[in-house]
């Protein structure tokens, strides 16, 4: 049902959208500001969009209350909302407004702001599920599917043709031939599935700040890819000298010491793809984050081989993000560029700090693969 308020509400949402877009860089670099709310929505604290007025400053103002309590008793912390009837209070609260928007919308805003191209899913034609859709009419069928209106329409038509219809006494009796039934068609339902495989270096040289960057960046990558595919799965691999699969929580919390063998992660990733995600059915996105400090030149060589033979042929995109860390040499990105500069399936990005996250996302997703 449409209401008058819909227009004004629409305008408000549009203004909110504009605000989010304006501040997107800030939101992206401060991942904490966005709280996930429920399955499909996020809450974003926006500085109030309300109209400014000349008004009294809060702290000098005070107020009057009623009830128990000694002089000096606290009424609860600043900004804490008290329950109560009506909007009777004069309790100030210069609050941020929590705006709830869907992930879909957020992704759209990000897409617009970063000018991300839409992804052309591969293998759409091959990946097909069938869905029954009731769209036709036929003359036979089970009674439960009888189309009441069409049946009576047919009956009245027949009775008029036969001359047995009396407008003064409009009794209509359908006979067997009048009966019409709903029928269904099988319709192809295009489906595209995507899996994101996050790999992260958790060796000693990756500090909390580096992990924070990875966490924020992966949130936005998730957001974007989720908006592009019907179903997105995320898998997580951490590695130092050994690689193992973990859940999301562990992925962002683990801190190991020890060396770095990137090949271990690539091996596990290749195995995961081979075992579970046949590339003709899945759009595959491995993202690897590291500080670029690999153990040995030999291992880097193994990595390149693995990429060439076991990963790249199957994936849509292989993304490597190198987080700057005071300990890492940052060599790995150079090696990758050297070997895969020509290959557009490989994207590398150097993330210098939180402020660079946005550009890095654009580098990763800007190709529309």
């Amino acid at each position, binding site marked *: 049902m449409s209401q008058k308020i819909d227009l*004004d509400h629409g305008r408000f949402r549009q203004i909110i959208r504009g605000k989010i877009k304006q501040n997107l860089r800030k939101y992206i670099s401060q991942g904490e500001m966005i709280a996930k709310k429920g399955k499909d929505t996020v809450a974003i604290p926006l500085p109030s969009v309300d109209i400014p007025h000349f008004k*009294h400053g809060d702290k000098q103002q005070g107020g*009057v209350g009623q009830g128990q309590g000694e002089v000096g008793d606290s009424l609860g912390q600043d900004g804490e909302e008290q329950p109560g009837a009506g909007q009777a209070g004069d309790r100030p609260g210069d609050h941020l407004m929590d705006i709830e928007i869907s992930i879909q919308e957020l992704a759209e805003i990000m897409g617009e702001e970063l000018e991300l191209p839409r992804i052309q899913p591969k293998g759409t034609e091959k990946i097909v599920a069938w869905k029954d859709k009731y769209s036709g009419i036929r003359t036979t069928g089970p009674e439960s599917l009888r189309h009441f209106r069409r049946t009576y329409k047919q009956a009245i038509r027949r009775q008029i043709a036969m001359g047995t219809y009396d407008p003064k006494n409009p009794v209509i009796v359908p006979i067997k031939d009048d009966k019409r039934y709903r029928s269904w068609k099988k319709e192809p339902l295009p489906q595209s599935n995507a899996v994101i495989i996050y790999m992260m270096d958790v060796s000693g040289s990756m500090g909390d700040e580096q992990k924070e960057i990875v966490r924020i960046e992966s949130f936005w990558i998730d957001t974007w890819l989720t908006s592009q595919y019907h179903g997105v799965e995320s898998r997580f691999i951490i590695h130092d000298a050994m690689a193992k699969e973990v859940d999301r929580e562990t992925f962002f919390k683990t801190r190991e010491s020890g060396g770095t063998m990137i090949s271990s992660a690539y091996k596990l990733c290749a195995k995961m793809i081979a075992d579970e995600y046949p590339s003709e059915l899945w759009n595959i996105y491995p993202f690897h984050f590291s500080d670029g400090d690999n153990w040995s030149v030999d291992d880097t060589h193994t990595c390149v081989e693995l990429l060439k033979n076991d990963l790249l042929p199957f994936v849509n995109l292989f993304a490597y993000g190198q987080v700057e860390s005071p300990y890492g040499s940052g060599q790995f990105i150079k090696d990758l560029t050297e070997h895969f500069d020509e290959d557009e399936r490989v994207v590398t990005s150097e993330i210098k700090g939180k402020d660079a996250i946005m550009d890095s996302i654009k580098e990763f997703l800007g190709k529309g693969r």
Partner: protein
Amino acid sequence: MTIKRFPAYLRDMQEEVEGYAKNYGLDFFPILYEVLDYKTMNEVAAYGGFPTRYPHWRFGMDYEQLSKSYEWGLSKIYEMVINTNPAYAYLLEGNSLTDQKIVMAHVCAHVDFFKHNYFFSKTNRKMIDGMANHSARVRRHMARHGQEVVEDYIDVCLSLENLIDPMSAYIVRTPKPRTPEQIEDDESGPVGRLRSKGYMDSFINPPEYIEAQKKKKEDDKKQKRRFPESPQRDVLAFLIEHAPLEHWQRDCLEIVRDEAYYFAPQAMTKIMNEGWASYWHSKILTEKALTAAEVIDYADANAGVLATSPGRLNPYKLGVELFRSIEERWNKGQFGKEWDECDSMEQKRNWDRRTGLGAKRIFEVRKLYNDITFIDEFFTLEFCVEQKFYSFGFSERSGSWEIMSREFKKVKDQMLRMLTNRGQPVIVVEDGNFENKSELLLRHVHEGIDLDAGQARDTLRNASRVWTRPVNLLTKVEGKGKLLRCEDTNLSERSAEYT
């Protein structure tokens, strides 16, 4: 808007409740009820009770907030009534019958208040049409100048909407402009000489007196050269009259001012109006309309309405208690010179002259008072103590809001301060030709509380958009005079003398 038919059982209920109300002496405009589902209720509430308002995103924002808080179970709008003749009132679909009965009794009293309270006497009772006209005008401007442009300008106007003079409808602030003859008389005539016979002249009009008269005249002239002659509180009116505006901009400003004046009496009588309505709903229900089966539901709902919580002043509670206290005092004759002068607590406690004037008195009060005069006159020491009032403030030391005092004078001062000018700072136009550069000088009449600095800056920006020339604001910050100045959205600040 979906208008549900008003079902027969509710119509019967309305008739019954209104019958009781009339017998008690309430006198109201005809009331038209509509039953709304919660979505429509939120919509109507976002529009301030009116079915049609001009298009603006702020209504959408209010709607979203109302809907969210309804969906999360934080708040629910039981009733709404608007000040028109006939009065429109809305009932929430799905409320229990007891709730609807309370609402109807409540609404009767509200409408009685609208009809009789002096501060509503100048409001437009056909405001539904008024609002619809405003809407049509704004839409026309939007069609011609673009939605964004007009909406943006309305934002600017709304930012200044509280700069009105709500009392101006009831008092004459500036004397009528004098006729040209009068002015000529004044200027050409001899300096205020008193009539005297020649030989007495030097006694009746001594040179000092003539000097003083001359000076007074000079001052008067200077005064007249000032623009506006005396500080003007209705800043919006001043802008409408003197700012270089395009026709549609002036129209937007007028619309915003019109609506601000329409809503002002409601802000000025919030405590009284809600108190009056709560007084009558409880009287009508408990004495007449309740059936035994409804008592618990009624008590529950009523307790919710009158609940207090720390740091909040519940106008329903304060208002209803004050009306009851007035009724009791006038029933027992606890007023007048004798009562005021009596200082024996014992005697006061048992004071009962059986005057029985309570009912008469509360009807008088609802007719003649507004929140400020209401509190000022009837919020007494006894009442303050009995109702456990306190004042609170922000303690920098502990970083939280604390109870500051239970002292009667402090509590009452605080309360009156909150009500003065509807809790808004007083801003006046001091000079429309500041420093002879056709800049605008506004002055914050500082009454002990500083302005919210951030908001003041943004608002000043908007004011300078309307004035199209730099706008200055003289205020005090932490006891020191400050002059804020906005030129082309650039803000500057310097210390200045605040006198």
